[in-house]
């Protein structure tokens, strides 16, 4: 499978008030087409920063990030944030169409694609509502639809479900599996929830240390839909937990 994202020797240093903080160091990572890759790590280890670098919002201090160039009418990557981050002055359909407005598509095509994306997350009926009229879970689905609408090579998700209650979170996890598996969508999913990572991903990368780097990689080949209580998942979760506590001890 062709690599959609290639990261080589990535390091990132923030400079603030003259002091430099190295957040990421010596990171190598490849994401293959169709893969569902999860990144887990403690708070502050640099998970969001890594996504920002991949999305082109922050320039790396060292190393290279190569992202496959998009075809016309698509984007290489699209980001889903922890908060839904909808634009409150746009109706739901117009929020979903936001990214499409940059892609030089005819208006009718934009509308069709926004409607299709909204339908994929099951919210076609809410097209005309305002964001304030939606629940937290619905808002996060709209954010997902907004990202899917631009048909990204890689969908980047930064703890997208962590602000939701357990029931809604599980429902959205199942929905994400259904949507992405069916379409062969490549996903890079950041989370601090180990159970979530092993339930969703083909591969889990453990990010740890200060500055953050890759501490371990685990592969999961159980077919989807998975059983959350399956021993294989539990076992991998245990090993990830061990990776994290081990690095804590090393770091402390």
């Amino acid at each position, binding site marked *: 499978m062709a690599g959609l994202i290639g990261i080589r020797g990535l390091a990132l240093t923030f400079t603030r008030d003259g002091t430099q903080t190295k957040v990421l160091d010596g990171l190598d990572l490849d994401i293959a087409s169709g893969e569902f890759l999860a990144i887990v790590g403690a708070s502050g280890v640099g998970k969001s920063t890594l996504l920002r670098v991949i999305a082109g919002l922050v320039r790396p201090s060292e190393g290279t990030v190569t992202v496959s160039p998009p075809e016309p009418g698509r984007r290489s990557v699209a980001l889903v944030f922890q908060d839904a981050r909808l634009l*409150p002055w746009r109706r739901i359909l117009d929020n979903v169409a936001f990214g499409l407005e940059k892609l030089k598509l005819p208006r009718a095509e934009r509308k069709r694609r926004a409607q299709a994306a909204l339908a994929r997350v099951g919210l076609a009926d809410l097209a005309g509502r*305002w964001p*304030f009229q939606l629940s937290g879970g619905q808002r996060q689905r709209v954010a997902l639809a907004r990202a899917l609408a631009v048909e990204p090579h890689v969908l980047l998700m930064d703890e997208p479900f962590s602000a939701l209650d357990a029931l809604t979170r599980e429902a959205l996890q199942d929905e994400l599996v259904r949507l992405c598996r069916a379409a062969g969508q490549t996903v890079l999913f950041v989370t601090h929830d180990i159970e979530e990572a092993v339930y969703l991903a083909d591969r889990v990368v453990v990010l740890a240390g200060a500055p953050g780097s890759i501490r371990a990689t685990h592969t999961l080949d159980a077919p989807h839909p998975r059983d959350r209580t399956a021993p294989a998942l539990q076992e991998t979760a245990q090993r990830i937990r061990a990776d994290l506590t081990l690095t804590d001890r090393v770091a402390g």
Partner: protein
Amino acid sequence: MRAHPAATLLPLLGLAAFFLLWEAVPLSGLVNPAFLPPPSVLPAAFLREWHSGQWMAAIGGSLGHYVLGLAIGVGLGIAAGTVTGLFRTAEGLTAWVVRVLRPVPGLAWVPFAIIWFGVNPSAAVFIIAIGVFWIVYFASHGAIRGVDRDLLELADAFGFRSAPERLIKVVWPAAMPGILVGVRTALGQAWMAVVAAEIFGVPGLGQRMMQASTLLATDIVVVYMLTMALLYGLIDAAFTALQARVLQWRA
């Protein structure tokens, strides 16, 4: 939102009480009617102004100054507030210029307006525009400085990276509630500026008011005061309705 009947009735009741009290004070002999003309003499004064054609002419003149001065002041206020709200350098450069110019009262600009534009409508428009500019400038500056940086990051993430794109997609819509508050304040301030702008002889409500007051025709002064209040009331009500429509996205 459906208004409760009492909610629409109450302001009218208050207004009626206000006029009754106003009528009672000069009639009771408490105040000389020449100093405070009672409302009952106003219709006659109004009809005199109406038949002479001066009322309509004054309204026409003032509305012209008002609309043009307001448009220029609001436009420049939003533009300047946008620039200093977005760019720290611009904010720093103008910080003391703003402090020097801001406290200058509208009346102080009158001699300059006459020298620069002559005694003609442009001078009146200038005075009104200056009065309005600062209000809109500070409202826009604050609203634009306060735009959620997360939303700008969102625009970035979906490829809107040039200044015009960010302005149109995020900055102006996000700042709109704050800007409109400034514009609404400006609608009232501009009427006050109309009087200052017309006292030196540009035809309009302010000029008519000054002429009447030098003749001590207090009834006519009051007719024009109420005319201005009516115009302001209508414009403010229309603007509030427009504002509610534009900002219907707010919970």
